[in-house]
C-alpha cells in the first residue's frame, strides 16, 4: 500500500496516495467525490458501501436480523471523517468475500497509532492482559470506543476532558469489576468525585481541573509501584507540580523533598498530607485533621504535642491553638538546625509571635513538645510532675482511708442507735 503518513495528536495517520486530508477533517466533504480507491485493496476487499449497506442504521431489524448498526456512528467518528476503509481496521476481511464470519479479529490499532500502542504496551492495563487471558483490563476500544471513536477534543468523545472520568468509572467504579480484578485502590472515582479536583472538574467545569489522565497519564498508565509511573512516590511532586508549579518550587526546598531525593521512601510527598483522591480545600477543619497525618510518621512529636496546651485544645476540636503547620510551616518545612527553619533558634520567637503578641526570645524557650515522662529531655518537668503525682497519691491515700474508716464507724453507730431507738427522725 502506498501510504504516506501525517501526525495528528502524536499518532501517525496514514494519508492515501500522499494526499493530505487535514482540511477535510472538520469540513466533512462528500466522500463520493473522492476518486479511485487504492488499487490493491479495492480489487478484492469489501468496500465501505458494501459493509455499511448491511450495517446501516436504517436497516429493518424487526425480523430478528442481529447485524449491529454502525453507519451513523462511523460517519460521525474521526475515522469516518477521513473515510478510513472498514478493512483498514478489520484487516482480516481484506481480500475476503461477504458475508463474513460472525466474529472478527480484534482490529490492529498499531498500524496507524504506533506510539500510542507502544505506550499502552507498557501500561498496567496491557500488563494485566498479558498476564491473564480473561483479564478485564482496558483495551483501546474500552476507552476510545470502536466505530464511534472521536477526537479527544470533541465534547462527545469518551476521552474528552470532562468525559474521561465517566469512561474510567465504567470499570473503576464498578464494584464487581473492582473485586474481580483485585483493584486495591477500590472505588476511586467515588472519592475523587467529592475532592476539590473532582468538584472543580465536574461542578465548576474547569478545563484546568485535573481528570484521571492528568495525574495517571493515558496510554501508559502504570502501577504506582513502577518507578516510571507518574504516580510513583518519587514522581508525585513532579506530577502535582505540573499544575502546582509554584508549590513544587517551594516544596523542593523542604526537608521532605531532600529526603525524597536521597531515596527515602517515607519522606512526605504531596499526597501524604493532601491525599490522592480526597484532596480537600485547606480550611481550619482540614488543618485540624492534618495533625493526624503528620503523626503517622512523627509519632513521638505527636504524642508530646498532645500533652501540651496547644495539643489539648486541638484534641478538643478547637482550631484556635497552634497545630503542626502553624509552627513548622507547610511545603517548606526545614529542620530545626537550619537557620531558615521557622522553629530554628534564630526564627522561633518570630514564629511564636504570629499568635502570641510580644513573644520574646525567652518566651520562645517554651517547649511545645515537652515530655513530662522523659527525665532526659525535660528533667525539671519530670521531677515536678513526679512530685505532683506523689502529693496527689499521698493526699488521697490518707483521706481515702480517713473517709472510709469514718464512714464505716458512722454506719455502725447509726445502726446501733437506730436499734436502740435513739435516733429522732423528726428533727
Amino acid at each position, binding site marked *: 500500500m502506498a501510504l504516506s503518513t501525517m501526525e495528528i495528536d502524536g499518532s501517525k495517520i496514514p494519508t492515501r496516495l500522499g494526499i493530505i486530508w487535514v482540511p477535510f477533517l472538520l469540513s466533512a466533504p462528500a466522500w463520493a467525490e473522492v476518486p479511485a480507491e487504492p488499487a490493491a485493496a479495492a480489487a478484492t476487499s469489501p468496500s465501505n458501501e458494501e459493509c455499511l449497506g448491511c450495517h446501516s442504521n436504517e436497516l429493518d431489524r424487526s425480523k430478528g436480523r442481529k447485524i449491529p448498526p454502525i453507519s451513523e456512528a462511523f460517519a460521525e467518528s474521526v475515522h469516518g471523517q477521513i473515510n478510513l476503509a472498514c478493512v483498514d481496521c478489520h484487516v482480516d476481511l481484506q481480500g475476503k468475500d461477504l458475508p463474513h464470519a460472525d466474529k472478527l479479529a480484534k482490529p490492529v490499532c498499531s498500524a496507524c497509532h504506533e506510539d500510542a500502542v507502544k505506550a499502552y504496551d507498557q501500561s498496567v492495563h496491557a500488563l494485566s492482559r498479558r498476564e491473564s487471558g480473561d483479564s478485564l483490563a482496558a483495551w483501546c476500544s474500552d476507552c476510545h470506543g470502536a466505530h464511534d471513536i472521536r477526537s479527544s477534543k470533541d465534547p462527545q468523545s469518551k476521552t474528552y476532558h470532562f468525559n474521561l472520568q465517566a469512561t474510567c468509572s465504567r470499570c473503576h467504579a464498578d464494584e464487581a469489576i473492582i473485586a474481580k480484578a483485585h483493584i486495591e485502590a477500590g472505588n476511586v472515582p467515588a472519592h475523587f468525585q467529592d475532592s476539590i479536583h473532582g468538584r472543580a472538574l465536574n461542578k465548576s467545569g474547569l478545563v484546568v481541573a485535573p481528570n484521571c489522565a492528568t495525574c495517571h497519564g493515558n496510554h501508559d498508565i502504570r502501577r504506582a509501584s513502577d518507578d516510571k509511573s507518574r504516580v510513583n512516590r518519587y514522581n508525585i511532586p513532579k506530577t502535582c507540580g505540573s499544575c502546582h508549579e509554584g508549590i513544587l518550587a517551594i516544596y523542593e526546598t523542604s526537608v521532605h523533598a531532600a529526603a525524597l531525593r536521597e531515596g527515602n521512601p517515607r519522606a512526605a510527598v504531596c499526597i501524604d498530607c493532601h491525599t490522592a483522591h480526597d484532596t480537600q480545600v485547606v480550611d481550619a477543619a482540614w488543618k485540624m485533621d492534618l495533625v493526624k497525618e503528620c503523626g503517622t510518621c512523627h509519632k513521638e512529636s505527636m504524642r508530646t504535642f498532645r500533652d501540651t496546651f496547644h495539643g489539648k*485544645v486541638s484534641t478538643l*476540636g478547637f482550631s484556635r491553638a497552634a497545630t503542626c503547620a502553624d509552627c513548622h510551616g507547610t511545603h517548606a518545612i526545614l529542620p530545626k538546625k537550619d537557620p531558615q527553619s521557622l522553629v530554628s533558634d534564630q526564627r522561633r520567637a518570630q514564629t511564636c509571635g504570629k499568635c502570641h503578641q510580644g513573644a*520574646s526570645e525567652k518566651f520562645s524557650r517554651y517547649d511545645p513538645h*515537652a515530655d513530662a515522662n522523659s527525665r532526659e529531655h525535660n528533667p525539671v518537668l519530670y521531677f515536678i510532675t513526679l512530685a*505532683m503525682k506523689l502529693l496527689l497519691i499521698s493526699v488521697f491515700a490518707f483521706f481515702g482511708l*480517713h473517709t472510709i474508716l469514718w464512714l464505716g464507724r458512722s454506719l455502725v453507730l*447509726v445502726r446501733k*442507735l437506730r436499734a436502740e431507738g435513739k435516733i429522732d427522725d423528726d428533727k
Partner: protein
Amino acid sequence: MMTSKEGAPNPSKPEAPTAGPAPRAPSTGFVLRFHRYDRMLHGFLMASFLTLALTGMPLLFPEAPWARTLANLLGGYRVTGVLHRIAAVTLMSVFLTHLFRLGHRLFVRKDFGLLWGPRSLVPQPVDLIQLLQHFRWFVGLGPRPRFDRYSYWEKFDYWSVFWGMAIIGTSGLMLWFPAFFARFLPGWIFNIALVIHGEEALMAMVFIFTVHFFNGHLRPDKFPMDLVIFTGRVSVEELKHERPAEYERLVTEDGLAKAMTSPPSPGLVTMGRLVGSIAVCIGLTIAGLAIYALLR
C-alpha cells in the same frame, strides 16, 4: 436530719461532759458559727470554684469521651476561656477579701486569738492528737475526740485554699499572661506551670468533691448536707454534740449567751438546700467525670 447521737460506745468514756455545764447555759436555740460576710465569701468561692472546675475539665482530659461535649456545652473555646478567667478573678478577689478581713481583725481589732488557741485556724499540737484520737475512734479503740471550733480536717480544707491560690493561682496567671511573665522568666516555666496548674486543680477538685463533701455534708450524721455554711447557725444541741470543747469553752467563758442568735429563717434554709444540692450535684458529677477519665 439525725441529731441525737451518743458518740462513744461506752458511756463511761469521756464523751459526756466532765465538768457540769453552768446552770444558765441554754440547751436549745442557735449559735452563730459563720458571719454573713464569711458565708457570702464561701458562696462566691463555691460558684467560682465550680465554674473553674467545669471550664477547666475539658482541657484537663481532652481525650475523654465527654470532653468535647462539655466544652461545646459551655460555649466552646472562647466562652469557656472567658468564663474560666472571670471565675479566676472572682476567686482571687474572694481570697484577697478574706486576707483583708483577717488583717483587719488582727491589726485593727487586735484579735490575736486568730493566731493561736481554740479559735484559731492555725494547726496546733492538739490537731495532731485529735487526728490520732479520731483514728482510734474509727476503729473503736477510744472515745470520739472533743473538737473545738475548728477540727483538724477543717483546718486542712482551709489551708488547702491558701495552697491552691498560691500554686494554681500563680501558675494560672502565668498561663494567662505568658508574654508578660516571659520578660523575666524562661519559656520552659510555662511547661511547668501547665502541668502544675492541671495536676493541682485535679487534686483540689477531687478533694473538694469527695473528701470535703463527705466530711462536711455526706457523712451519715450530716447527710444530706450541713446547712451551717448557708445559714451560719448551728443549734446548741448540735454544737454540744459535734464540738463539745467549744460548747464548754463558750459556757465557761460565759460567751454562749453572746453567741446566741435567732433561728435560721425558712428562706435561708430553702436557699441553702437549693444551692447546696446544686453544688453537690455538679461537684459529684465533675468528680465522676474526672475519675472516669483517670481510670480509662
